[in-house]
């Protein structure tokens, strides 16, 4: 028996090839967090708009009319955090200390390691 993934708990950009699904252009917006509480509220408000990995109705895999389904969005929106971003959001230390060292170091610190 295969593992049943909780698709609603996985971001769309992890499992989908957006470029092949009609989203040829991408835009990155970096945000800086000054106020932890406001930052968390922003993330909470943004959450319903995040594109998840739930399947969209398509001609190949139709989903019954009337059934609850995730509609294909106009723009796919996904978010990511740096470790320092999570720190600025006031994530509990207990959670932060469990992160991988590579993630804590970040890309800039690790860039010289690549040939």
């Amino acid at each position: 028996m295969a593992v049943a993934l909780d698709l609603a708990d996985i971001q769309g950009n992890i499992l989908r090839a957006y470029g092949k699904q009609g989203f040829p252009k991408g835009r990155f917006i970096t945000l800086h967090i000054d106020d932890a509480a406001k930052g968390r509220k922003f993330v909470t408000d943004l959450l319903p708009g995040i594109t998840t990995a739930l399947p969209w109705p398509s001609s190949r895999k139709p989903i019954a009319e009337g059934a609850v389904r995730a509609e294909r969005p106009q723009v796919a929106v996904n978010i990511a955090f740096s470790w320092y971003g999570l720190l600025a959001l006031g994530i509990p230390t207990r959670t932060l200390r469990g992160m991988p060292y590579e993630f804590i170091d970040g890309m800039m610190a690790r860039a010289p390691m690549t040939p």
Partner: protein
Amino acid sequence: MPTFDGGHYFLTALIPVRTDVMNDGRAVTSPVHALRKQLSMIPTAADTPLRGGGQSPFARNRRNHFARFVIIDDVAYNGRLGQSTALNAINQVNLTVAQPQDHLKSPFLVFVADFDAKSGSNAERNSYLVELWNTAGQDLREIFRFCQGFDSRVTDGTTFAAYMADCQIETTMSFNDYYADPPALPMWPADMYKWPVIVSGGALLLGLGATLLLLVAALFARSWLSWLPYSFGLGLVGAVALGLIVLTAYMSVMAAGGKPFPSAQDSDLPTVLKALHLRSAFTRFVIDSQMQAAGTDAASAQKLYDDFKSFVTETKPHNLDTPTQAPGVIGI
């Protein structure tokens, strides 16, 4: 029967979570995701005002010792089942081919609770669940609505109890935390089995020994063979009797092990709450009375005496109902 032990009923229920896509009011999501969010918002006890000042829904009646929700997404794969290297080589087992793995068909919500009970009967469980529903039904609905079959089956306390009864599994490890002293348990009556074992074992040994002797003797005179059925019969009777006695003893040990422990003294929830209240009130009394206790004059002693008298009058140590600590409050 660890579902009922030490005067407490330990309820364990495994409730399957829905797997269809749903709308939680803000976004299209999965029930298990929405359930996890809902569970994270339940106050676990009396919250400080800074944390919202909420109170756990389980504190609304005086029957819950402990209650806990856990989500099981899937069973963990423990790794390859080991086998002898020699057997693998003989059977030409290819270790790079994965073994089958077990997975759950849906995530499960685990609900465990323990409450006071006298006999551990189903009626006591149902009465607890009905009271839980009557005092915290709306909060429970917000949680259980993500579970399979809940919306169509549960309308009131009785249907909630029936739903939970269907999801109940046997508790195999209960959590008895109120034994200040070990309970007085009866000894297993080993003496009762001593003589029957000696007699039947003796008969078995005697019968076997005699049979061997007769067989040896028969080598010299065949007439000894006529005694053989008696000695063999004695050994057989001894063996059967010994087998029956050992079986009876085994069953008696298993039956004794299956019996629930007696209730620990003062382990029902009203008494525990009263004890917590007395402890915190007495701590306060000790702090407030330090000056009188340190004084050496007669007036200080009299004041301490009077204060303790009024402490006993106010706290009423023998009255379990009032004054007492409210459930769901953490503090000294």
